[in-house]
């Protein structure tokens, strides 16, 4: 159990690292585009398209780690009060919330799958043919990956909550 959770955290961290690197790449791309346009009259083609795609990838690569690090937005007043007054009820409420989250992220994962397979099968792209195009399937794949990690992290919260020190 502990090994599985550690592996999950490792995978979450790795996705997070990939997202951070992507931010650096974006910065460099825009910088090169500006320099190319002004200094050499040669803009880097496709930078707007790359930026458009990357932001989606960055979000889905990093949201699982944001949850793990306790960064996801919520109002803690009621859960905090409940866990002080009635710890068991507090844990039940939190578990219900995690289950809801798993369900709704699963819905997104499940309904993004056909979008991914179609993008893959048909070689869907953004950009203008003849100038610059990028395939969109890698981004769809990161949405799937991010949703899967997010579901696993919500499940891990339930495990850690009820298994106590054992996990």
């Amino acid at each position, binding site marked *: 159990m502990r090994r599985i959770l550690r592996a999950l955290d490792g995978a979450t961290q790795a996705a997070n690292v990939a997202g951070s690197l992507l931010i650096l790449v974006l910065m460099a791309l825009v910088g090169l585009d500006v320099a190319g*346009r002004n200094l050499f*009259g*040669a*803009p880097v*083609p*496709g*930078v*707007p398209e790359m930026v458009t795609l990357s932001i989606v990838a960055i979000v889905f690569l990093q949201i699982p780690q944001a949850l793990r690090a306790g960064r996801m937005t919520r109002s803690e007043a009621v859960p905090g009060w409940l866990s002080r007054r009635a710890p068991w009820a507090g844990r039940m409420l939190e578990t219900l919330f995690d289950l809801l989250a798993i369900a709704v992220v699963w819905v997104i994962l499940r309904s993004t799958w056909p979008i991914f397979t179609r993008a893959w099968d*048909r*070689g*869907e*792209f*953004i*950009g*203008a*043919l*003849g*100038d610059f195009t990028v395939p*969109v399937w890698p981004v769809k794949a990161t949405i799937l990956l991010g949703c899967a990690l997010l579901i696993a992290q919500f499940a891990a919260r339930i495990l850690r909550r009820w298994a106590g020190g054992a996990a």
Partner: protein
Amino acid sequence: ETYNVTVAAGHPPVFRWVRMISEQFIPTVQAGLEGSGHTMTFSEQYGGAIAGVGEELEAVEAGLAEIGTCQALFDPAKLAVQNVTYYTPFVSDDVRQVATTVDAMHDDNPDMLRAYADNGVVYIGAPIGIDDYLLMTNFPVDSLDDLDGRKIAAPGAAINWLSGTGAVGVAGNLTTYYNEIKTGVYDGVIVFASAALPGKLYEVAPHITKFGLGAQYAGSLCANEAWYDALPDEVKAALEAGADAAMQWYHDDLESFVEIALTKMQEAGATVTEATPEMRAQWADGMDNAARVWADELDAQGRPASAILSAYMDAMRAAGATPLRDWDKE
């Protein structure tokens, strides 16, 4: 029977191609259904309320909307062959001619309709024509040499049009043209008159040169395939009549507005110059044949772009257009 129909458009209703839905399409459809025993009520979801620009086709395919503006221009992967006009500049500056031709191709060319069927939607008409693209610059253009080294913004595939001119093509966006020309990020744009006037582009780029880059086709109304197939014939006929009325209204309104736009921009101090035939020929001859590259790439994906390219060029020549380049024959 009563049909509840959601209509989706990513653009807000100040755009003519959204207004044509409320002003003509819906009333005509409802009038056509009178006495048929069917009624149709519409829920109009514009301005990205349920689908953004370029996402309408997906929303219609999913069934979130029954009808939508399928914007080939903003969805070039799914409606790839429909973008044929953007790869064939210097064909015709007559927007009605371009729109009618593309519309007619949807009637009798199965290759055109396949792109819709592949995405679970049906073409119902009302083609959105875009008036002749102009070159608007903050410097006078007396010869093509004046473009050398200048940064010119162009939308999407139109960036290919700048190849061979010596200008630096920058991917641009209508919404930010004004400020970016003003600060000097670009020295000019390729844009159409009906957008240049409301965007006040003549203030920052007052030198308007008509090269006859060409009018374009941007998209059409489409419907969810499963929903449409289940409709009785008289309802389908009413939708078609609505689309025809919308097309008529749209192009009447657009053509008169283009006249107004050019006049008003001149009154505001802009200069409108017709490029000489030599300048036009020089630009056209210097271009790469992007249509060829485009068609070959799509052909390789099993999409019949070469066939569409020839069909479109033939249809335009038959309609009396005189293309500066025969993009399909090179």
